């Protein structure tokens, strides 16, 4: 009996390949286009003459970007927020995840419920804002380091990791040798935790780098703006021009190439994340796998 063509495995493979290649191009092209447009001659880009490769290579856009005080300051701020925020996040999450993975922790269920409940119900924006305000954290650097530095999802990933990887015998042997919990954690558990620290450290770092909401709500002082708020001004509100620039010719030129500047800004701001991304992609995926085991 002859079956329909779609049951022919060779033809099936061809269809699959065509579809996968189309998806690949469909998602890759806009990313690629932003890159080539950012280094092409701005006039050729706006005339629609740049399609597949950069033309009239020009770094004029980048030149303005690296002289823009707002971007440099936002970049520095976000590096501080992401660095300190990730350190705080690891300090909160790793020990807690380890403690919750221990079967001899009394009251484990209640404590988990205490945390998990916050995933499904929250006070909402306004009460949160009032609490942050009453703690004196509005318009401080600390608020952007602290908020978001504890996520119950990451806590569950950490707990699952420890529950699956730390052999009980190791702990018993250490206890026989007179090791207390704290020493055991520092000298035995932490050295064995590199992969989980990498995974959730990366999650937190990316979160802090990309975080926009907290800055929008809690920061009014322009000097404390994280990068994403500056990006909003440039990319969405269209304020391509640094207000400290007074040279009229320069302002005119900036208006002409504002689109190229936007492409450049997209690259510059996403670069840190996209640069480490190919190296750590496996770690990111690992987190999803660990998380899906038990949640």
């Amino acid at each position: 009996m002859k079956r329909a063509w779609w049951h022919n495995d060779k033809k099936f493979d061809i269809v699959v390949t065509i579809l996968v290649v189309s998806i690949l191009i469909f998602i890759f092209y806009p990313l690629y286009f932003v890159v080539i447009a950012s280094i092409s001659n701005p006039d050729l880009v706006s005339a629609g003459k740049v399609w597949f490769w950069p033309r009239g290579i020009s770094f004029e856009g980048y030149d303005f970007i690296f002289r823009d005080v707002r971007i440099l300051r936002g970049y520095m701020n976000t590096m501080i927020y992401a660095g300190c925020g990730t350190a705080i996040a690891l300090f909160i999450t790793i020990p807690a995840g380890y403690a919750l993975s221990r079967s001899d922790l009394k009251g484990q269920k209640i404590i988990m419920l205490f945390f998990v409940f916050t995933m499904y119900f929250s006070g909402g924006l306004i009460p949160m804002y009032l609490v942050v305000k009453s703690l004196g954290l509005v318009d401080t650097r600390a608020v952007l380091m602290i908020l978001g530095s504890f996520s119950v999802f990451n806590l569950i990933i950490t707990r699952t990791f420890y529950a699956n990887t730390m052999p009980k015998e190791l702990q018993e042997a250490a206890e026989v040798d007179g090791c207390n919990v704290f020493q055991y954690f520092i000298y035995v558990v932490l050295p064995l935790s590199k992969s989980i620290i990498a995974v959730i450290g990366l999650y937190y770092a990316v979160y802090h780098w990309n975080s926009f909401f907290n800055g929008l709500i809690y920061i009014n002082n322009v000097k404390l703006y994280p990068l994403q708020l500056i990006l909003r001004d440039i990319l969405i509100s269209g304020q391509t021009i640094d207000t400290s620039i007074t040279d009229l010719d320069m302002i005119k030129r900036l208006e002409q190439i504002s689109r190229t500047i936007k492409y450049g800004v997209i690259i510059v701001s996403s670069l840190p994340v996209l640069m480490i991304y190919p190296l750590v992609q496996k770690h990111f995926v690992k987190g999803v796998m660990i998380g899906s085991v038990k949640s």
Partner: protein
Amino acid sequence: MENQKNKENYNSRIMRYIKKSYMLYIFLIPAIVYAILFDYMPMYGIQIAFKDFRPDLGFAGSQWVGFKYFKMFFESYQFETLIRNTLVLSFYALIAGFPIPIILAFLLNYTTNLKLKKATQMVTYAPHFISTVVFCGMLFVLLGTDGIYNQILGVFGIKPIGFMTKAENFRHVYVWSGIIQQMGWNSIIYIAALTSVSPEIHEAAIVDGASKLDRIIHIDWPSIMPTAIMLLILSAGRIMTLGFEKAFLLQNNLNLDYSEIIATYVYKIGIQGGQLSLSASIGLFNNLINFALLLVVNQISKKLTKVGIL
């Protein structure tokens, strides 16, 4: 005597336990402090939804007014628009976004060229790591009337489409750009489920003359269906927690009729407008509906897949 001994034994056991394990509670202190300050304190502050909040009197000191602000919201002219926009966007995103990661996972699973598979995975996961601001910025420059996509359409003689300027297109841009951003990342869990299917089943099917399509329908699909149903139910339980950031960033005065959702409205009248009690009550209304949905959905999930999340 016996009793006494037991008691001593018990006491010393407790002492030993405390000595051995109390430090574990110290490990939990930072996390508990965070949760109390930034999760439970705001929950305590929900009471201002039922009060005339005055900053000088605080959460507890302000006057009770009952459901005054809820009534104000239900009777306001925005009520219907807000609920409609929030629900339409969520359901659209849920229904359109559900099958695509599954299809992608099947395609990748049956891609024989490993290099192509790796490249596609890497490229489709990448947009997940681009920030919402940058992603929306890209939408504006690429989909603008003179953006690259309208230039491409122009080559085929199609007039520029106002992706970002026409209010009616807001929903489509919102939902489909979200799908493009997340489809790779959301497919990971399905790819994991597909690779855990025992290869012997596939081998046996091949011996029986099954085509690849047969194997997808009769082996792969049944094996990932529980995961798929579970995820579908989970996201149905999050219907009302539509993201603030993207709607806010894509919003302008022209598309407000389609883009104003509960989350953006709460921000506008609360943080910008200072109507704290009113916006707190709208936020609470939203959270309560969501929590109720979650409980219902969890019950359904327990019945259907024997897996609950709570």
